[in-house]
């Protein structure tokens, strides 16, 4: 079994009126079956309201399925006794770094998680150091988080998760509020964690460029997984993606337009290197 596996997962938001009668039922996740392999970098795309975040919140048992099941490293999230183990296995990073930082000093913030799960003090400091090193923020350990840039804050939030030594990190639009440099810092950091430390990464994003290095991409629409494949496979289906209110990376879009004008490029070009090389060969 993969590190994350779901079977016919359904989640419904139920809205009630003042007397507690059911007013509306909104099915946010609809019969989702996914299996994510340990060590993979997986991206989830989908428009606002497509159910991505609701799905992600099942991955560390913030939400529990209305119907169906989800297992994290073999543990059923409905098993309340396993809750702590599940949260230790899968850590979550959210969109707004300011909502995730609680410490007044960077190193204390990173140490909060391990302290909370009862790790002995000397080991907490080891983990803090390792976590900050993993996100290249060690030299800021004594700083106040308030004075950091958005990208730096988000890296501190990631360090806090790394210090929990999870097998898997789920990031819900971690770059939405960042400038180009901040975005790059965060993406480089999680790519390194994935490649060097073997941490499974699940990245939810609206930036198509951030997805091209992923092992696998899921596309969601109206609560269901509607496309699934490698970035190359997914991004060669431009029209379908547009139907789902999504896009393709600029490089891919340019290659598509050139192809339509008769330049014989291959399908699903994702990187600047690929495009430049192909154009050079044709020229």
């Amino acid at each position, binding site marked *: 079994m993969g590190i994350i596996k779901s079977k016919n997962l359904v989640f419904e938001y139920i809205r009630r009126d003042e007397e507690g009668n059911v007013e509306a039922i909104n099915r946010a996740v609809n019969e989702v079956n996914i299996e994510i392999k340990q060590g993979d970098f997986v991206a989830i795309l989908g428009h606002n309201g497509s159910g991505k975040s609701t799905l992600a919140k099942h991955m560390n048992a913030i939400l529990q399925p209305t119907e169906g099941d989800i297992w994290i490293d073999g543990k059923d999230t409905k098993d309340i006794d396993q809750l702590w183990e599940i949260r230790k296995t899968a850590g979550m990073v959210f969109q707004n770094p300011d909502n995730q930082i609680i410490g007044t000093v960077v190193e204390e913030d990173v140490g909060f998680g391990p302290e909370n799960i009862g790790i002995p003090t000397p080991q907490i400091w080891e983990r803090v150091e390792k976590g900050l090193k993993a996100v290249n923020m060690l030299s800021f350990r004594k700083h106040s988080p308030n004075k950091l840039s958005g990208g730096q804050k988000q890296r501190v939030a990631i360090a806090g998760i790394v210090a929990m030594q999870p097998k898997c990190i789920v990031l819900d639009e971690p770059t939405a509020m960042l*400038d180009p440099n*901040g975005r790059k810092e965060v993406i480089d950091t999680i790519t390194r964690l994935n490649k060097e430390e073997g941490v499974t990464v699940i990245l939810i994003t609206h930036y198509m460029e951030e997805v091209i290095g992923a092992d696998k991409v899921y596309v969601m629409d109206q609560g269901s997984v509607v496309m699934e494949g490698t970035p190359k496979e997914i991004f060669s289906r431009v029209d379908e993606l547009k139907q789902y209110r999504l896009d393709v990376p600029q490089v891919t879009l340019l290659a598509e337009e050139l192809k339509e004008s008769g330049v014989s490029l291959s399908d699903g070009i994702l990187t600047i290197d690929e495009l430049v090389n192909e154009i050079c060969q044709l020229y």
Partner: protein
Amino acid sequence: MSIILDKVNYIYGSETAYELHALKDINLVIEDGQFIGIIGHTGSGKSTLIQHFNGLIKPTSGSIYYNGEDISDSDFNKKKLRSKVGLVFQYPEHQLFEVNVFEDVCFGPRNLGLSEKEAQLRAYEALKMVGFEEDLFYQSPFELSGGQKRRVAIAGVLAMKPDILILDEPTAGLDPKGRDEILEQIKTLHETTNMTVILVSHSMEDVAKYVDRLIVMNQGEVKYDDTPKEVFGHYLELEEMGLAAPQVTYIMNRLREKNIPVNVNVTTIEEAKEEILRVFKNR
């Protein structure tokens, strides 16, 4: 309705240990009817700058003139300035509060002391301007999608009939389609009303596509103030400031390095396509 900034300086926490010189000798003229982009890394002074445009922050030194009047004069009507220079903050949907969409948009014009009829008329016009569907007018703003909420928030500012509309990252957190829809709407608004629009953005692709003039802020100073084409020609300098150029600019530069005689002065996909097709033809 021009705004002139003359040697504007702003210092946060002046004469304290946390003193921060956020704006340094800013000289800018915002002419009527322009579509202006402002880019800069987090902390470069963009937000401080736009808050000066409608008098939310007073400069530590220097002067700001609105239509030739000094806004720090004691008899200057600040309330009028704020209705004429509309500011849409980041994540403006967090400021929605009324029971339904229509009431929310009416709040601003009512606050200006306009008659109920006039306020409603303006709210109607403003919601139409942002392309909001009529059958959702009496829906609670909290039950809308992210893109719809944001339109309502923008309509709330438009209902004040500003001459200048300033938007601080209006597309942050929206899916690609939602992002394109909002930006197209803003463009149409600019073209049909000739309103001055100032767009603060972290997306180089978006500013390249939409604005006529691009202001680059770096460490509290105006680093560049020119057409997007000219500005993105300095992409190496922009990278040092934590910014970047649109992806197509990199593609063109790489092609040039490989001795393909393309013009590197290209910032949009459309232009890149034309340029590559041109060199293929002239081969």
